[in-house]
């Protein structure tokens, strides 16, 4: 990574921290503490399942909200406030600016997820008094959740490079919801005929397949995760993010900042 991308990423991370984004960790800690205490009292034998389900789903939702609401302002805020002018008048290429912003927010989400994951493991220890080999699956689920965040961040950045924050939020959130049901959309496409089939198949492969990255339920039920799935999902996320970022850079590279 060029040093300029690194500096822009570090500044993006610092902005998120100073804007008190990580305060969501307090809400998450309260949620997990409450859940652990409550689950321990009302459920018998399924405490682990409930804590994993609740914990990972909360991590996913908190992260998606951060990815969308910070992601949509990453570029548009810099244009509106004209802070971009003093950055791009330096030896910084436009693609480096986009890449720096992307890595900065992705880094913020990784750090946020790391602290939340500690909370989930503490809650797990509290309800089951020990960790098992199967709990390693939670780490894989967390990794997939991070891949989801990275995809949503790239999409928010893409919309932010040409649209208003409000529209960007609508687009990014819509794609998150549709992407969460991408497998169903693909199933629907397979059942249709003619032009509808083409359209539905196109749409199904265009939206991010976030449902393939959601293994919370199977991990909670202690089902093993294959190495092949990890490899495939990693490759899919990298290619998808790469394409979305290329789109964002192509748009940003041609923009006039009036």
């Amino acid at each position: 990574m060029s040093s300029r991308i690194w500096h822009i990423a570090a500044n993006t991370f610092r902005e998120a921290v100073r804007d008190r984004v990580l305060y969501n960790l307090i809400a998450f800690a309260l949620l997990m503490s409450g859940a652990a205490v409550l689950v321990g009292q009302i459920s018998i034998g399924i405490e682990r399942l409930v804590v994993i389900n609740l914990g990972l789903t909360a991590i996913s939702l908190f992260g998606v909200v951060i990815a969308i609401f910070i992601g949509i302002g990453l570029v548009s805020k810099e244009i509106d406030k004209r802070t971009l002018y003093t950055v791009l008048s330096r030896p910084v290429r436009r693609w480096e600016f986009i890449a720096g912003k992307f890595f900065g927010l992705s880094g913020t989400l990784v750090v946020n997820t790391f602290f939340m994951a500690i909370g989930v493991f503490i809650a797990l220890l509290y309800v089951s008094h020990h960790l098992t080999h199967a709990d390693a699956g939670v780490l894989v689920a967390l990794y997939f959740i991070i891949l989801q965040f990275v995809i949503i961040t790239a999409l928010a950045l893409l919309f932010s490079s040409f649209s208003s924050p409000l529209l960007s939020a609508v687009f990014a959130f819509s794609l998150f919801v549709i992407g969460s049901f991408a497998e169903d959309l693909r199933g629907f496409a397979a059942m249709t005929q003619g032009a509808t089939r083409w359209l539905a198949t196109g749409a199904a492969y265009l939206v991010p397949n976030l449902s393939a990255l959601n293994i919370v339920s199977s991990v909670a039920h202690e089902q093993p995760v294959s190495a092949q799935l990890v490899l495939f999902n990693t490759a899919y996320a990298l290619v998808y993010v790469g394409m979305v970022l290329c789109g964002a850079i192509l748009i940003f590279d041609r923009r006039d900042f009036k």
Partner: protein
Amino acid sequence: MAAIEILGLEKTYSVGFWRKRPKRALHPLHLAIEDGEIFGFLGPNGAGKTTTLKMLMGLVFPSGGGARILGMDLDDPRMKAQIGFLPEQPYFYDYLTARELLTYYGQLSGVDSRQLPRKVDSTLERVGLRDATDVQLRKFSKGMLQRAGIAQAILHDPKVVFLDEPMSGLDPMGRREVRSLIEQLKAEGKTVFFSTHILSDAEALCDRVAVINLGQLRGVGAVAELTSGVRGKVELVWQGTSVPAAIKSLGAETHVAGDTTRAIISEQNQDAAMEAVRRETLRLISVTPVRVSLEDYFMAQLKPSPEEVVAR
């Protein structure tokens, strides 16, 4: 070698939502700014000054023509490492302190990390922000933000400095300090290109100025050279308090003080006015040309040409 060569740079925007129509923000502009020069780019609001600066900074793409700075293309990162830019009404990352802001910009400009802390401190001192180094920019006044903007533009010791309305938001003391800073930059051998609509600043500082209006260059040259081309006014002073009717009819501004009268008339009426004074047998004391200011020249350039009047 010219530090800045503007070679027919022009910009046309598309305006309108459904039916796009072209709007020309800048007609082909040709300018050459010499190395070590302080060059003033003058014009009223909306004249095309900021558009020109944004094109030079790579923030807006030209519709035609081109430019070279220090002999390099506008998108060359090596060139960008050697220029500094202060945008109009700058706004910076307000969650950073002045020291953090300059450190960040220094890093982006490729300043050696070992020298950076020293450069940051000396630059903040130079712009009068030594006491505010660790204050977040959200607590800065408009004038302090302008100083921080100037600091980030000169931090990395650039060869060419572009300043868009550098005196904006500054009090008289601040303006004086910025003027002195610009003079120091020239003394260090740097080229300064600044846009302004405050003519007294340009008159006091610039080796040469260009006047632009409605996206068109109206004149370029040294201030004395430009103002010498404008037919000015003359002041006649005579003894006595009576004002000949012939002088009144020439549209003279007259002022009576004690037993002398002063009349200011246009240069072309000078002979007729002197003749009127002689006819009335008044004692003529002096005839002095009234110095033409840059403002007079500027206002003369802002008048629309006959073609523009027809086009309107």
